[in-house]
């Protein structure tokens, strides 16, 4: 369908003159479009509820994530099924630990991995990409070739080596993920900056005597936010997936702490004994969480870039 955007804008312009339209920024516009998207809005609520539940839920249970219920140990298949009577709402794992507490604890870790890793990636990536793109020339060349070199290193090996060298801990996981995930961001931001920096308002800022650093912070980065937010919402689930994969391999989070990936891995290995709940609960959380993230990402993309639909 052929839509003449300029024409439409001019049309709305001329109509706007006839009646007062309330002032609003592009950001507010995008948020309103986002709110109009049912699937994403529901996802936001589900995700918020899940996060809240992950942190408050453990208070409801008599068990914590590491205490072993000695009555059930080794007997999970017969007696470890979910029930209210003994307080194991989601049942127990093979060692007799409470699945409810473990799933919630795993949710905490997985969400944290997603958010913290993304935060690191976005901060580093946006600044790095914006600087490379804005200055261009040799600076750009050196900075982006460095990214290319880093990208050509198989990150999985490095992660595994890190875990082996420094032991398995949450911090190593954060560092390892943060170390590699900013590069895509930097590339995307650089590309966007390249198109932005030839816009006339940047030239106007140069003529207004604004320093390079201020131009990046005040004019370039705010105009990148749309795409950054969208990419962020897709990056969180991909980091969660990555962490799950590492944990599934048996690396990553150190016992007794756990995560979605680790729980699914455990649950999958005992599925042959008929302990379905050990897989079903973490998997349910995992799938729901990822679905929500992807829906939100979709909604954000439509909200910030309505013309490409």
């Amino acid at each position: 369908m052929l839509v003449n955007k300029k024409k439409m804008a001019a049309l709305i312009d001329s109509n706007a003159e006839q009646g007062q339209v309330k002032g609003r920024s592009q950001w507010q516009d995008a948020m309103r479009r986002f709110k109009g998207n049912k699937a994403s809005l529901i996802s936001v609520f589900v995700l918020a509820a899940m996060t809240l539940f992950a942190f408050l839920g453990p208070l409801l249970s008599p068990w914590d994530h590491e205490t072993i219920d000695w009555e059930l140990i080794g007997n999970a298949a017969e007696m470890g099924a979910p029930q209210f009577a003994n307080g194991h709402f989601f049942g127990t794992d093979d060692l007799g630990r409470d699945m409810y507490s473990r799933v919630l604890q795993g949710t905490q870790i997985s969400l944290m991995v997603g958010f913290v890793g993304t935060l690191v990636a976005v901060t580093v990536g946006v600044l790095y990409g914006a600087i490379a793109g804005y200055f261009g020339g040799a600076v750009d060349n050196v900075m982006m070739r460095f990214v290319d070199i880093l990208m050509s290193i198989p990150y999985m090996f490095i992660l595994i080596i890190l875990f082996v060298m420094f032991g398995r801990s949450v911090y190593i996981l954060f560092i390892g993920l943060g170390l590699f995930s900013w590069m895509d961001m930097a590339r995307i931001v650089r590309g966007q900056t390249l198109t932005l920096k030839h816009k006339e308002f940047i030239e106007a800022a140069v003529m207004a005597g604004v320093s390079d650093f201020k131009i990046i912070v005040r004019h370039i980065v705010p105009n990148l936010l749309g795409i950054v937010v969208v990419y962020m919402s897709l990056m969180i689930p991909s980091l969660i997936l990555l962490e799950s994969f590492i944990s599934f391999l048996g690396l990553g989070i150190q016992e007794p702490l756990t995560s979605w990936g680790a729980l699914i891995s455990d649950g999958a290995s005992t599925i042959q004994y008929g302990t379905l709940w050990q897989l079903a609960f973490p998997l349910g959380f995992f799938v729901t969480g990822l679905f929500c993230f992807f829906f939100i990402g979709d909604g954000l993309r439509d909200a910030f870039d309505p013309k490409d639909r």
Partner: protein
Amino acid sequence: MTEIIKPIFSVDDLRISFATHDGEVEAVKGVSFSINPGECVGIVGESGSGKSQTFMAAMGLLAKNGRAKGDIIFQGHHLLSLSTAELNRVRGKNMSMIFQDPLTSLTPHLTILEQMREVSSLHMDLSREETDRLCAQWLDRVRIAESKRRLNQYPHELSGGMRQRVMIAMSMLCQPSLLIADEPTTALDVTVQAEILDLMDELKRESGTAIALITHDMGVMARMCDRLHVMRRGEYVEEGLTEDIFYNPQHDYTKMLIDSMPRIDSPDRQHNKNQMPIDESVSGADFLKVDDVKVHFDVTVGGGLWPKKLPLKAVDGVSFELRKGETLGIVGESGCGKSTLARSVLQLIPPSAGSVCWLGKPLNGLKKEELKDKRKDLQIVFQDPLASLDPRMTIADSIMEPLQTFSSLSRSEMKEEVLKMMDRVGLDRNMQNRYPHELSGGQNQRVGIARAMIVKPKLVICDEAVSALDVSVQAQIIQLLMDLQQEFQLSILFISHDLAVVREVSHRIMVLYLGRVIELAKSEDLYANPVHPYTQQLISAVPVPDPKIERERKAIKIPGELPSPMNPDAQLKFLPSKLKTEKKGYLPKLLEHSPGHFVAEHDALDQLLAQD
């Protein structure tokens, strides 16, 4: 006459509305009109008046959130009630459309021939050979040289004017009885525009095709149309024969449209009188002196391991001086280097050679910090009002930005300055927290001017500052610029492709051609007595909003396309006699024709017209 002939296209009480977030927006509010065979009907109106939506609806190209009510009848088909399949049989064959931008309306990855074949295979039953012959014939008819070779080229290999001619050839391929032209020449240079308009006029007379011409340019209307409809905010405010509307306009809006159109043939428009007088005895050498400035870009030619790098001479040795309080108009067609020249004066693009002296001191070669101090006096207003403002900043913040670097005022004092400047440029104070996308083009351009003026500069460069605006708004902005000039003793470099506008504002005018000065003279001199054939050609091509004068005027056509600036002989287009005698790379010299009137070497116009 009109009662006997049955109109081929008629619209009855058409209403178009769009569902937007701000509620239903009515773009077209009940218009009715008809077009007879072989007639050219013009729809004129400013941007946002809904003039093209009428025809978008007829072609079934309305945006998804649009709804059309009423009736559009074309050759007995009720277009609004047709299904897409039925509509496909009508549109393209009997009714076709040319759009404003010839680059975006051709598919980039198909050759011209493939695109034309597509049209003919849908609507005509011809063999491949016949089709190809027909296509070549049509390219000849729209006067594209070497049509056989052009057919196998891709759109990006053709110039803008040629692309538009290809579009016309494509839409004429099936001999439609109605051709809808939506701003067909707005994106083109004046000389090309003149050729395209002539071509359309010829097609109308030869094949009897009816034309619906949508444009904002009264000059084009005067030249082309038999009947006119003046549209404003979705309604026709006036309709009638072209002559009646031009010589005896009834509605205030029509009068305003005709009045605010700058005319190349009459310099004494009312607001022209307050052009600031300048002291011509003073030399501009100690104000702004641009000496033999060159800007060359390296262009990679060819592929392989070691591609050649050739310099693209965007600006190739331009010298001029500017006095305090003077306006120098810089005109030229697209690609002549006028914007590059402006940016190199401001050191936004450092010149490759030559010098720019500001108040007696050179600007080029300065360090960043030193340059920053000078920039307080040098400001620029850009062409696209929307693109020149940061979309995420309120307009008050945008205007305040230069103050933050150049003044030591407190924030509240700065705010006060901003509000004063907003008053000065005619912006309402309560708009200060608005964002650029919420304002109209004219308002945004006022913001751009306010931002440039807030540091009280001595020189402002207007880079096509009024070209993107509607004529009525254009007149207001020009007025504002001239008032500001008087108030602040401002010097202006006024860059534009529109010769009529430049004439209104400038004391002196410089004509650029492929990065070199072709003619430099006082404004009256240049228009009364243009010496260089290129200048004559440019002036003759500008349409005049007066049907009688316009139809008698004859555009000068110098044979040949605008050569590529990479072509070493390009500079000699107006001096072909030197092509044989001199060695390669000869550049025409700028000679003083009469005091203050400089003209580049050239051959006589007759000689040029007589070539091939």
